[in-house]
């Protein structure tokens, strides 16, 4: 057996391990959905901002990672650490809520500042799109490297939130608590946002601005307020995603930790149809699952990223409007 493995390592750079995929299909699916839900929450931030500003907010991945740092710092200061804490269930829940709120607040604050410091001056000057994009990239760089300078190149020590364990046995396939929490909570939040866009006054404003900013302004919608709200909502969702991310990857708070995840989330947004709230959910879940299958099938983590990018390019080529097509502007309540 080992000779075979050695040969595979040496010569072939693509091997398809269908047997592994078959035997780990369901666990891979559940794990994929878990990460997919996190992608989806981050993807919403991209989608909303894109809807109202037509801007790909490159720095959103740093909004997310700020949330992750905030979650870790909060939990650490609450006494969480390397081992699962010795607390009763409700106490843990309370602490997690606190950490989640801190993450959301921090991420929302960064998103807010980002808009105020970087994008608003540009909007005032009606800067061309290229200038917006370069600024977004620059801000992403700045935030990332502020963390690098502050916290160094290594990740924050891990914080374990609770002892993860299986809650269900689905025909021999265990479903773990974290999967359940993350997927359900993410879907609940996404439904909430969807309803917010469809039913509330703020949501109407967002849709109006996405559709036609000038007319919206004429109709009495405060565009600046809508834009700020959009950034803040995106930040809040990214903060929630950060909590779940740290739940999955307790040592995930690292300065460059947002980059790849951000790309994947953006891919998810495009995949589902950028500007489309439900598309973000669908795209995120799909991407999570596809990535996991790819890793199992190809036996190499590098392929997950390659596959994500290829999926992105293909989607853009074949169906630039994404799977669910119509965008935020066209949602009719």
């Amino acid at each position, binding site marked *: 057996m080992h000779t075979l493995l050695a040969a595979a390592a040496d010569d072939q750079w693509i091997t398809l391990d269908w047997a592994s995929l078959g035997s780990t299909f369901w666990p891979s699916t559940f794990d994929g959905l878990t990460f997919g839900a996190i992608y989806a929450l981050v993807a919403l931030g991209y989608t909303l901002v894109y809807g109202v500003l037509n801007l790909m907010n490159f720095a959103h991945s740093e909004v997310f990672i700020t949330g992750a740092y905030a979650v870790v710092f909060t939990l650490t200061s609450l006494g969480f650490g390397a081992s699962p804490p010795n607390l009763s269930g409700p106490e843990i829940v309370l602490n997690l809520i606190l950490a989640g709120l801190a993450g959301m607040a921090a991420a929302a604050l960064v998103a807010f500042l980002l808009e105020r410091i970087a994008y608003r001056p540009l909007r005032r000057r*009606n800067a061309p799109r290229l200038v917006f994009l370069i600024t977004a990239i*620059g801000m992403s760089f700045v935030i990332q490297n502020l963390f690098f300078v502050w916290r160094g190149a290594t990740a924050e020590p891990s914080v374990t939130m609770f002892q993860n364990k299986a809650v269900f046995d689905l025909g021999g396939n265990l479903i773990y608590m974290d999967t359940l929490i993350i997927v359900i909570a993410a879907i609940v939040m996404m439904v909430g946002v969807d309803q917010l866009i469809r039913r509330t006054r703020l949501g109407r404003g967002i849709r109006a601005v996405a559709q036609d900013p000038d007319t919206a302004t004429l109709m009495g919608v405060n565009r600046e307020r809508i834009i700020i709200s959009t950034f803040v909502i995106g930040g809040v969702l990214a903060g929630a995603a950060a909590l779940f991310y740290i739940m999955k990857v307790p040592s995930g708070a690292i300065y460059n930790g947002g980059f790849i995840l951000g790309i994947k989330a953006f891919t998810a947004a495009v995949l589902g149809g950028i500007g489309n709230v439900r598309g973000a959910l669908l795209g995120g879940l799909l991407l999570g699952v596809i990535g996991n299958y790819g890793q199992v099938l190809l036996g190499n983590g590098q*392929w997950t990223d390659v596959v994500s990018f290829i999926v992105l390019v293909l989607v853009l080529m074949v169906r630039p409007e994404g799977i669910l097509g119509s965008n935020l502007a066209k949602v009719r309540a």
Partner: protein
Amino acid sequence: MTSPIEDAAATQSHLDEQSERPKRGPFDGLARRWDHLERWQQWGVLALVAALVYLLPVLNPPLITSEPSNDFPITCANMAIYALAALGLNAVVGQAGLLDLGYIGFFAVGAYVTALWTSTDSTFVKIPYLWTLPLAMIVTVFFGIILGLPTLRLRGDYLAIVTLGFGEIIRLLATIIPALRGQVGFQNVGAPPGTKSDGNPVFANSSGTPWYWLTVTIIILLMVLLGNIERSRAGRAWIAIREDEDAAEIMGVPTFKFKLWAFAIGAALGGLSGALFGGLNGFVNNQKFDVQTSMLFLAAVVLGGAGNKFGAVIGGALVAYLPLRFTGLAEYKFLIFGVILVVLMIFRPQGLFGARNHLLTYASRARRWLGEKTSGSGATAVPATEESSS
């Protein structure tokens, strides 16, 4: 494709621009004075500057030198290579306005071409190093067209993300494909021929000066050729695409074709600089071709003034120079360049040197003609604009 927001923005910006005079940059005055020089005076100044540029590693001026932390001739060679890469990216981002975040991919392809055809670690047929320079350009142009054909039809920000993905894929493939040797890399990458009296090669990895001269010569040659392109319909098409792609197309410009040209030219220069980089270091592996380096190139172009080839060259040289000279800054370099990007975009999007391009081959002729015509009626020709020139 004009969304109402864009239309409104355009109107507003025109109104704004009428009310507010363009801000002056630190080098605008210099540029204006340059414009007023006679042609022969300009050549004279250029010759003097060129001589100084060539002598830089030999002079090794105190204060400017990067020693004792880094050998100065090697620093110079690195500066020249970055400048060349920035020059290529400038055609894509600065002139055609296509945000290419995967430029490092072309740089990598160039370096790998050189490595594959000259390194002792490669199983490929070996060819002389200098032949790999044009080969690298051809291969990267091929990659550029492969990437450009499907993606250049995309909107600007989609293009950015797809090119970003392309850069990452190149880096990941370098890791995955065994023939590209991942982090193990290629040692003993070739160099131009020639041996010194002490038996060591002229183009040793430790002697930066010959590499520097070679690269500077290439840069000067390319700047002349790029200048020719700039003052042709291609250069005008690029600027027009950057300013307003739809309008350019509606004016009959085959925009896709010229975007592809910009991409191909950028790719060729990226590949060339990558090949020189591989030769200078004598070692190529997958480590340096990450998104961060792509961002540094972008910062170089924006810093110098997107669209201005002199600016891009100086920007590229600065981006390479600063962290090597001020090694204390090494930790902060990405932060600093990030801040520079944002601050420039907010306060001076045209960069240190403005981006006024001369786009007509015989503009002076028109000016003369106009002068003759209007001198009779007493009107004076309007002088060139306030923007600085390249």
